[in-house]
């Protein structure tokens, strides 16, 4: 019996080993053949730590890429990074794939995109949410969003909706980009409270993370004790904030994409930052051989890259129509929502003399 078992085992083992050797030979053939070439226009994106299904910024970017591919027939792909040590690896691997344009989605990738542009001067790079300002390399394009504009609308809506007179803001990590959201939102609230003639305070807290949804939820649960509307600019961590709104049956305002699908009854509206649309615009420019390198583009309500969704079932009809008017005012430049702390202070001082 023992002998039979050991013989069967030996036979299976030999068969497996031989099969594996065959695989190796086959692999050797594949290696010697080399890969075929694909001459299509090739655009790729690298995520900044979140997955491409983050229901926020990255997802919006990928949708833009897909629609770009559909409209032009270009080849597109994304690469997900788990953590920051993956950034250089993935950017480097994309360079080996002969991309025509590589997008870094999120400012975290800035330093790596800059380095890659130096190493691969023949390739084009673009980065969303970041500007190298004066020092933009010739083969890099920066894209900024006037997120303060949509955040202003969000603040305005929050202030008009709140019953407690207190609204909240939860950011990911403090920084220039999230400042746009915070101060735009604060300004929107201030603007609305002047209109209502009622004091509405804004509570601000940071989750110190763009991915930790549990932490986002914990912060939001606490915040909903005081506030009844909370706006978040915390990427993946924001998913937890919306969950908290659902549990507490309060309102959350989504960010980057229309996030109402996450909690249809509890997402008041979303401050859309349509990175996908910007990607489409910029990629198309490059495809049409326009010079985009060395520049920074800024997109806002006017270009249709930020705003609020068409349909907001939870939003009061009257508020919705007044928002429409506000949008126009911003688009025309009549109101300039602030995106930094200084601009906000200035805005507040001007606000008192402003006619609404």
């Amino acid at each position, binding site marked *: 019996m023992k002998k039979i078992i050991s013989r069967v085992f030996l036979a299976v083992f030999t068969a*497996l*080993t031989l099969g*594996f050797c065959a*695989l*190796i030979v*086959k*692999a*050797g053939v*594949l*290696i010697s053949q080399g890969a075929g070439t694909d001459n299509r226009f090739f655009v790729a994106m690298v995520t900044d*730590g979140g997955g491409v299904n983050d229901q926020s910024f990255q997802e919006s970017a990928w949708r833009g890429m897909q629609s770009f591919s559909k409209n032009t027939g270009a080849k597109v792909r994304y*690469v997900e990074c788990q*953590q*920051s*040590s*993956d950034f*250089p*690896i*993935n950017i*480097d*691997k994309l*360079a*080996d794939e002969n991309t025509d344009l590589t997008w870094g989605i999120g*400012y*975290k990738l*800035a*330093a*790596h995109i800059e*380095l890659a542009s*130096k*190493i*691969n*001067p023949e390739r084009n790079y673009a980065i969303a949410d*970041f500007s190298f300002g004066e020092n933009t390399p010739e083969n890099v394009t920066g894209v900024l969003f006037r997120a303060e504009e949509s955040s202003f609308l969000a603040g305005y809506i929050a202030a008009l909706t709140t019953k407690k007179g207190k609204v909240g803001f939860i950011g990911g*990590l403090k*920084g*220039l*980009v999230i400042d746009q959201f915070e101060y735009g939102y604060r300004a929107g609230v201030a603007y609305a409270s002047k209109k209502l003639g009622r004091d509405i305070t804004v509570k601000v807290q940071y989750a*110190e*993370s763009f*991915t*930790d949804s549990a932490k986002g939820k914990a912060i939001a649960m606490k915040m909903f004790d005081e506030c009844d509307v909370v706006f978040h600019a915390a990427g993946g961590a924001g998913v937890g904030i919306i969950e908290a709104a659902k549990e507490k049956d309060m309102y959350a305002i989504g960010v980057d994409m229309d996030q109402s699908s996450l909690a249809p009854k509890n997402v008041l509206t979303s401050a859309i930052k349509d990175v996908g649309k910007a990607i489409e615009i910029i990629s198309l420019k490059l495809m049409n051989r326009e010079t985009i390198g060395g520049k920074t583009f800024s997109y806002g309500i006017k270009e249709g890259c930020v705003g609020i969704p068409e349909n907001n079932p939870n939003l009061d009809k009257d508020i919705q129509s007044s928002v429409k008017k506000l949008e126009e005012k911003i688009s025309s430049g009549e109101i300039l929502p602030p995106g930094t702390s200084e601009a906000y202070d200035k805005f507040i001082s001007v606000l008192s003399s402003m006619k609404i």
Partner: protein
Amino acid sequence: MTRKIAKLLKTPFFCTAMAIFFGSMVACGILLLTGYSASESLAVMFNAVFSRPKFILNVILKSTPVILTGLSVAFAFKSGLFNIGAEGQYIVSTIASTITGILFDFHPIIQIPLVILSGMLAGGVLGGLVGILKSKFGIHEVLTSIMFNWIALYLCNFVVNIERFHKQDSDGTYSINPSGFTLLLNDWKFSEEGRNFLKDNPILSDIILKTDFNLNFLIAVLIAFIVWVIIYKTKKGYEFRVSGLNPDAAQKAGINVQKNTIYTLFISGLLSGVAGAFSITGTSIHNIQTLSMFENYGFNGLSVALIAGSSPLGCIISGLVFSALIYAGQSLQFKIGAPSEIVNIMIGIIVFFVALVRIVPTLVNRFLEREESLDVK
């Protein structure tokens, strides 16, 4: 004849090679089961390492930290200690190197040693602390090391967010001052002259321009050699080995085992510290970033040391193999979309087989025995 083959079968090198062979075999099985083409995967992995000079060099460059953390683990292991804290020591070293690299800006001749020494020292202190806790209070080193790993992780996140160091609109600190870089030809390769020269030399361009071209690997090899000398040629090394293999006998031979525990873990920490410091000085973009999870340089050192059977010189080979596997694994994910976890599984299986093939010499002996006993009959 049989004896010769048997002798060959018993060599550690052959055993390890066999472990890698079977590890890949099982990994291919998993790939097939999950619906990926195994032969294509193998081809991709092979190409990812060998098809371009850049890839080969990258494997070498990326092996540097794991060789060093591997040495750190192996060194402690030779003295009977399990340095699972290499990860934390690596992290505090990157923190210390970054801070000194940002705060000071001397001439490279001073700056580079300063940055590296500060990193080493930070790692060493953390290791030494574990040693003190073990020898003075009897707290097991594994326990404290694991805790220190987490402390180091959060310390890193804390330092990143200090205003003096945090770079606006990023998740990291500023890069250290360029005087602390241990990159070779770094200024030249981005200069007009360098670019023009490299344009005509695709291979050189591949090697110098497209990678973080540096000599840290050679220093790691040198350090491996030094560690070997310490362990096998010096009085202290002898004490370490005796303490590791039989602490009772060591104590009774007048060796201060407790003091040696502190020394060992300190040196072990220094080694992980070199790994961390080199990652800052020799890898773009020369800073630390917020960590959500361990980057595993230290933990990979455990695997490297295990595959090497704790031999210091073996760590060089196993570090290279390890780095090649990781690098190939990233390509696997990139090219055919197979999860990079496959490679982690593969590495796990290889380590498992390495442990398993230690029985090969025993099996061979048994085979020989049987043959001889047949002769006797």
